[in-house]
């Protein structure tokens, strides 16, 4: 046992030395080129899954497996997110105490705009997600914010998604170095290994989509956020993008960040941008 400990510490320090030797080229000023990144990202999936129609990637694991696809189609006949959707529609139409509504906070009164979220706010210098905008709308109108992960927030997001179904994801990166930085940070977050399992987002959703990890069939990263929010049978309920990130982190045995942490906002920005041109399919139903 002592020998094992030594081995462990040895391998750690050896690796650290190796790292130290390769690290002088830290921050090799790679040019950030989101257009090229998005193209490469999409091509990777289109080539890896030549039989999947491009617009079908937004249906996650169901684009990859026929037996599951049939179960999904059966579910979609009367989808499990129906109740959340109805609740969201009602909430969206119900005025705040001051008489204003959600519609007053959004472009086009909140209808058919999901494909433009998240966006980079050049005033704030940060990424703003739909959920963040919804809570800011509430707070600006004197209402308490909702939890970012489920329940009311998921219902509202579900309603806003359904009015945008079929619209093509259309995320912009404004001419602002901070926007490029947010994109780059999101990209780094996506590919960085974390947790005791030593998995990155990409370990599952780039390298192994369509395969089973334990019981679940992994969704492709391409278009994964176009289906948000989702009803997951595993949750027996709805969840937002925040909830999805948090569960992913936990599954790799990484302590999740707080919902709407900068890292989560940035990775949402990255993942949405590289899915530009693919349709909004949310709310989705997932295993």
């Amino acid at each position: 046992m002592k020998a094992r400990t030594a081995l462990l510490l040895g391998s750690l320090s050896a690796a650290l030395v190796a790292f130290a030797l390769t690290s002088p080229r830290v921050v090799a000023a790679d040019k950030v080129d989101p257009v090229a990144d998005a193209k490469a990202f999409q091509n990777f999936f289109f080539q890896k899954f030549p039989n999947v129609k491009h617009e079908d990637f937004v249906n996650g694991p169901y684009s990859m497996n026929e037996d599951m696809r049939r179960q999904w189609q059966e579910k979609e006949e009367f989808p499990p997110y129906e109740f959340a959707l109805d609740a969201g529609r009602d909430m969206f139409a119900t005025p705040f105490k001051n008489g204003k509504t959600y519609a007053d906070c959004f472009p086009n009164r909140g209808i058919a705009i999901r494909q433009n979220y998240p966006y980079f706010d050049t005033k704030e210098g940060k990424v703003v997600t739909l959920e963040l905008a919804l809570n800011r709308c509430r707070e600006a109108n004197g209402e308490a914010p909702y939890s970012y992960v489920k329940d009311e927030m998921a219902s509202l997001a579900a309603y806003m998604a359904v009015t945008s179904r079929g619209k093509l994801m259309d995320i912009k990166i404004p001419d602002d170095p901070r926007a490029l930085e947010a994109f780059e940070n999101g990209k780094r977050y996506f590919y960085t290994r974390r947790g005791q399992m030593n998995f990155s987002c990409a370990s599952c959703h780039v390298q192994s989509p369509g395969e089973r990890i334990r019981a679940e069939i992994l969704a492709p990263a391409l278009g994964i956020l176009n289906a948000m929010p989702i009803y997951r049978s595993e949750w027996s309920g709805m969840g937002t993008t925040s909830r999805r990130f948090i569960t992913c982190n936990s599954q790799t045995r990484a302590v999740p960040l707080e919902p709407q942490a900068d890292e989560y906002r940035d990775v949402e920005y990255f993942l949405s941008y590289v899915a530009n041109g693919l349709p909004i399919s949310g709310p989705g139903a997932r295993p």
Partner: protein
Amino acid sequence: MASSIRVRATSNGDITEVQTLIQHPMDTGLVKDAKGELIPAHYIQELKFACNGKDVFVANWGTAISKDPYVKFSFKGAKKGDDLKISWTDNKGGSDETTAKIA
């Protein structure tokens, strides 16, 4: 409060197809909550569909029906515009009912 029952009933002239989704926890009584305490069983036992004064479908359910239960069936003898009455009762004495027009 919104009804717990969602119905789609459509007639093709001869046959009426009915799909229903009901908001209900369908707790089995075997699952523990976050505090480690058993959540008592709470599930719909009977679901009835009646059209023109006659039962057209009756479901008896146990705890193995999924949360927010779904069921689909078809029957003859109704036409567009007829009323379809749906009612359920659960093991704790809860109940709900609604009436849908066949489309």
